[in-house]
């Protein structure tokens, strides 16, 4: 069968650094094609070139056998190439119908026909099995519905090729399945779909073909049926790597030291039901739960971002008040938030400045961290965590997600915290950095730090947690220890309704 979209020898360089090097890509109608690769492999750049957001330096691109050169997202759309981005999707302040038809509203005498637009929107969404009020603002609907509305718009607009960038990143398991149903339906209609994701099990669930990029080159394109998971990972990493699935780290057992940090009856109405949590030095308390189960809310309470309205926190047996992150930092807490881009990094500041930030905050503005100390800290952590590129002066926004995450970890490690809270430390980062961060967690635990780690990757939690607290419906429903810790037990506990606990 002829390919719908073919790209040959795509080159792209930024500031003289080659990001894509002679990449070939073939996409057929009626297939779901996964585009995989570590962070920095060039996936995003390739997609941006194919969808018109960037211009290529060299190479050819054909759509249905005809050479095309989209110079903007709008041009690509007109050609038939639609894109749904992960983070910036639609406009929350506009209505569902306005979002679907922005820029192509039905008009008569130059005026928008609102009633017609509304009816069209309703009819269109019905085809996707969504019952949304076209006149309601998008902000009214959960992310999963918005995602499908974005897909409906992109498909309606372009109709041949659909690019999905990390479409499942913020969906829970049920929503992912609903999305996949829609994708299968589109595939049956002959759409060519490209999906970029970090979740390998989803790749095996939905994709027909995979193309793997590594360091800006295309290293393989195969039918998924011919590609065992092990080989796929090897292809992505370019080396044989033992897949760490569900292997318990034997050193993870909780120590018998007394709990240094105790939270009793701690909770906040409308956010998370009161819970008891003890954390000892030298252990990792894993927190598992579906999206919206209260994971992040727990972290926010522990770190004083939100104020608890019930319960008492004690550190070393002394009652403490935790009403702001400032209090928490003073008590020796540290926290890496989930939303790295908005809550974690300060994009325009250099890598060094980002690393020193928390230490500076603890010392106060009257005691600036001397340049020499900052240099030494940056150098030490860049080396210890293998942050790349190892240039302390580079604005952090130019680093890949995995390296930004390491820099945020470095920021807190520089303050020498006693309790470190990590919210989704491995989300959206590549497999190499992933393994390094997991090793780092084990190392910090061995050094006697107390850690609370929130993660949606169950295998990962099983690997390094001393104990696992499972959340459901904003309740702490279960605590698993020792032999109880395995993926099945966690999933079972997650499925437990929160109120029953």
């Amino acid at each position, binding site marked *: 069968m002829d390919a719908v979209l073919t790209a040959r020898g795509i080159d792209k360089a930024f500031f003289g650094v080659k990001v894509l090097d002679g990449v070939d890509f073939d996409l057929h109608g009626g297939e779901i094609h996964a585009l995989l690769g570590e962070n920095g492999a060039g996936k995003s750049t390739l997609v941006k070139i194919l969808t018109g957001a960037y211009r290529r330096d060299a190479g050819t691109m054909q759509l249905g056998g005809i050479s095309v050169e989209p110079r903007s997202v709008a041009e690509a759309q007109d050609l038939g190439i639609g*894109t749904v*981005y992960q983070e910036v999707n639609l*406009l*929350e*302040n506009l209505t569902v119908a306005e979002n679907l038809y922005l*820029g192509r509203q039905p008009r008569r005498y130059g005026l*928008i026909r609102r009633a017609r637009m509304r009816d069209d929107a309703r009819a269109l969404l019905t085809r996707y099995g969504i019952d949304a009020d076209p006149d309601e603002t998008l*902000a009214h609907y959960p992310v999963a519905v918005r995602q499908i509305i974005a897909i409906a718009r992109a498909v309606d607009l372009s109709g041949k090729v659909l690019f999905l960038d990390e479409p499942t990143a913020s969906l829970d398991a049920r929503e992912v399945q609903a999305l996949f149903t829609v994708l299968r339906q589109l595939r049956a209609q002959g759409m060519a779909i490209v999906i970029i994701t970090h979740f390998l099990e989803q790749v095996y669930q939905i994709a027909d073909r995979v193309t793997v990029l590594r360091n800006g080159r295309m290293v393989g394109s195969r039918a998924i049926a011919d590609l065992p998971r092990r080989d796929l990972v090897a292809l992505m990493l370019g080396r044989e790597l033992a897949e760490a699935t569900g292997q318990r780290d034997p050193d993870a057992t909780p120590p018998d030291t007394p709990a240094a940090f105790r939270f009793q009856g701690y909770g906040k109405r409308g956010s998370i039901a009161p819970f008891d949590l003890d954390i000892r030095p030298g252990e990792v308390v894993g927190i598992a739960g579906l999206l919206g189960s209260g994971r992040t809310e727990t972290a926010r309470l522990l770190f004083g971002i939100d104020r608890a309205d019930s319960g008492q926190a004690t550190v070393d047996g002394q009652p403490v008040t935790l009403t702001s992150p400032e209090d928490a930092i003073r008590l020796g807490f540290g926290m890496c938030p989930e939303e790295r881009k908005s809550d974690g990094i300060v994009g325009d500041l250099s890598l060094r400045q980002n690393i020193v930030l928390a230490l500076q905050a603890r010392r106060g503005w009257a005691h600036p961290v001397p340049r020499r100390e900052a240099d030494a800290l940056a150098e030490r952590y860049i080396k210890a965590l293998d942050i790349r590129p190892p240039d302390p002066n580079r604005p952090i926004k130019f680093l890949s997600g995995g390296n930004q995450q390491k820099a945020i970890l470095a920021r807190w490690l520089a303050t020498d915290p006693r309790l470190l809270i990590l919210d989704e430390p491995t989300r959206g980062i590549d497999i190499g950095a992933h393994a390094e961060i997991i090793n780092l967690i084990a190392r910090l635990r061995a050094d006697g730090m107390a850690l609370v780690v929130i993660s949606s990757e169950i295998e990962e939690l099983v690997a390094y947690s001393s104990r696992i607290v499972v959340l459901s419906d904003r309740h702490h429903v279960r605590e698993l220890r020792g032999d109880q810790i395995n993926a099945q037990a966690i999933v079972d506990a997650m499925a437990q309704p929160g109120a029953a606990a």
Partner: protein
Amino acid sequence: MIRARNLPFVATVVIFLLAYALCALQFPNMLSFRVAGNLLTDNAFLGIAAVGMTFVILSGGIDLSVGSVIAFTSVFVAVLIRAGVHPALAFALALALSTGFGALMGLTIHALKMPAFVVTLAGMFLARGAAFLISTDSVPISHDFLRTLKGLYISLPDKGRLTFLAMLMLAAFVIGVVLAHRTRFGANVYALGGSSQSAELMGVPLRRTTVQLYAFSGFMAGLAGLAYTLYTSAGYSLATVGVELDAIAAVVVGGTLLTGGAGLVLGTLFGVLIQGLIQMYIVFDGTLSSWWTKIVVGLLLFAFIVLQRLILLASERRAAMRAAHGG
């Protein structure tokens, strides 16, 4: 059911009606076509400027040059007319100039990726300076054409008049409403106010929309300048200082989100009328200082910002509840 996003607008209308009712209780004369007509006429230039400002604020921007452009237009037109140019030609020239000035500011904002605040602040000084350059004195004008315009009116009961200025303002609002809700330009403006980044990815032409947006605001400021000139029969470079702030206040009290993306053009009309009503009340009372207008407007502004914040929080909480309950 009233949708949450329309609550601020409804609140504005209710406040206006309540306030008018209270005024009328105390001064029954205020409930007349004559007073209502005057309310429209006296606030025509502010209303026209506020229509342009509504679009700018909806897009997430701001236009601080409005007051200066009004003053410049009025002086420019007055000097031209005194020099013997026909008023119609002077008006056309003034509108072309103010529209071009706005377009230039829009282009600067887009091309230099500068905050609208900074660029229009520069525009404010430029226009004010240019007005002084033309004349520092008040320039009175009289011309048959102007008298004809001022003489146009629709009679209302009990000696009320819907003057040319009032009709001009109402027309500006009609055009504003149609532009905002029935054209792609309007939809693009709302999109910009939501998120310019998302809007761009959805194919909204940022440059064209930004230029059109500030050109429109410039045009409306110019038109407001003409209305002001007709109203006072003079051009004065020191006039209308801070009118842009009154316009911003009218827009926000009218229910538009100051950060952009949500609001109704019609709300701005009520925002303007509320300000006018307070002034009218002060005139009727006769003992109150006119500064009470500012105080009441300040309180109202504050109340509206709080109201919008509360609505936002409430809808976020509802969304969170829905997500938590799986559907």
